[in-house]
């Protein structure tokens, strides 16, 4: 579905992605694990059309992906950004409706709004509240709900569990599995490698801008080097 080949991205004078290649098939959950500064967010922002690149290609459904955020959204790829970035100055409902900004199918939007409220009953309760008054966990749900409102085929999730209490972390991962059931493909970027590998089908390990390893999530989780570096196991 999404195919990245030999991608090189320079970001603020730094060679942030060095020949990254990866592919995502329809219906998969693919995770990219790696430490801070490995280039995970850079990769997502490049796919989303925020960063220009000189070498490499990103293609989506066999076609080159435009380097323009709103065109990427229109094609059905939506990113739920790190730090959630909900519109604190707008209500929960306004936030969700902004997710559907490019859509014109009013009836389907209403249905999707109901689906999001079913998935996140807390958001329904707080429909008229300003998003800034929500807790961190609720804001993460809002950010994911807002992403769903664009009716994407591929969702890019950037550190959805970052900064959340352990109990909520589990909830977020359960929700990701629910979202997959809604016929979405997911690219998940996480520092919580253990959790990410437990729900993913396949995984890539990104280190200093390079793909170091790739394989099924199970293989990667069992790899001693990964266990030492990312899963906290002593080898």
């Amino acid at each position, binding site marked *: 579905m999404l195919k990245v080949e030999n991608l090189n991205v320079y970001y603020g004078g730094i060679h942030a992605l060095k020949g990254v290649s990866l592919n995502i098939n329809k219906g998969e959950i693919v995770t990219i694990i790696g430490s801070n500064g490995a280039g995970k967010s850079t990769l997502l922002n490049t796919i*989303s059309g*925020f960063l220009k690149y000189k070498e490499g290609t990103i293609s989506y459904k066999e076609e080159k992906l435009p380097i323009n*955020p*709103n065109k990427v*959204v*229109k094609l059905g790829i*939506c*990113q739920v*950004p790190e730090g959630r*970035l*909900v*519109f*604190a*100055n*707008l209500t929960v409902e*306004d936030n969700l*409706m*902004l*997710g559907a*900004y*490019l859509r014109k199918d009013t009836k389907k939007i209403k249905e999707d709004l109901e689906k999001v409220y079913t998935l996140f009953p807390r958001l329904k309760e707080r429909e008229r509240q300003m998003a800034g008054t929500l807790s961190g966990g609720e804001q993460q749900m809002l950010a994911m709900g*807002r992403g769903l409102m*664009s009716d994407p085929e591929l969702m890019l999730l950037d550190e959805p569990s970052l900064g959340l209490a352990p109990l909520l972390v589990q909830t977020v991962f359960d929700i990701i599995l629910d979202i997959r059931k809604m016929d979405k493909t997911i690219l998940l970027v996480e520092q919580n490698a253990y959790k990410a590998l437990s729900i993913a089908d396949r995984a890539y390990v990104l280190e200093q801008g390079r793909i170091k390893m790739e394989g099924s999530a199970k293989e990667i989780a069992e790899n001693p080097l990964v266990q030492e570096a990312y899963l906290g196991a002593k080898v």
Partner: protein
Amino acid sequence: MTQFLQQLINGLSIGSVYALMAVGYSLVYSIMNFSNFAHGGVIMLGAYFGYYYLTAAGLPFPAAFIGAALTTCLLAVIIERGAYKPLRERKAPFLYFIISAMGTSIFLENMVIATIGPTFRSYPEVLSRTPIQIGSVSVGRLDLTMFFISAICLALLVFFIDHTKMGKAIQATAYNIKASALMGINTDLVIIVVFALGGFFAGIAGVLFGMKYTVYPQIGIITNKSFIAAVFGGLGSLPGAVIGSILLGIIETITSGYFSSQYRDLIAFVLLIAVLVFKPSGLMGKVTEDKA
């Protein structure tokens, strides 16, 4: 009491026109985080366009009025495309935007001096100068017109911002430009719309001020006060800009009425400094690190 009411009404009338100009500063600031000092130049040109549409082109007042607003609307967008977009594309620091804005402002002022000349021009008498008597208070027709036109414009703006899709997109972009782009919002278009709105209101304010005072190349100086009002109310906040402007208008007229009009501007600037010292984000402003 009568005198107080009289001054209050004058203050509301002046303040509402300040508000029309201040929302232009605030809208741009809320999205792009810089103070668009070229706005004063656009207001000044609005006054000139209105004047020439009325006199040289001989248009009826409403047509000249709307024409001036549409012209400055276009002008503001051209300024954005020419002076700011190239900087945005290069991700230039905010300081460069201000320098570009100041340069544009100086350019516009001098262009008018060089082509039209520095002389003062007064609008033909569109409205009768005889005041309307309401009880013991007499109100100038122009003051009343200024107030109502400004109030209608501001109400339309509030409706647009709160109840249309583009309005929501403006609010979202003001909060976070990246997240807005992730929603599929064309943030470049949002910026154009914001400049167009500011430019449209600048034309209206320019014509109203041209009618109230006269038209001259430095009329933009007056717009500094609407900028003060925007900072006073909290740059980036629309209600803040309106409240700040109305307060400034009232404080000015009360000062001129009870003390002396020479103290008017002194008070305005002291007020700005005091607000910046005690509440740097203004009365209702969003908290930001750099106020540029």
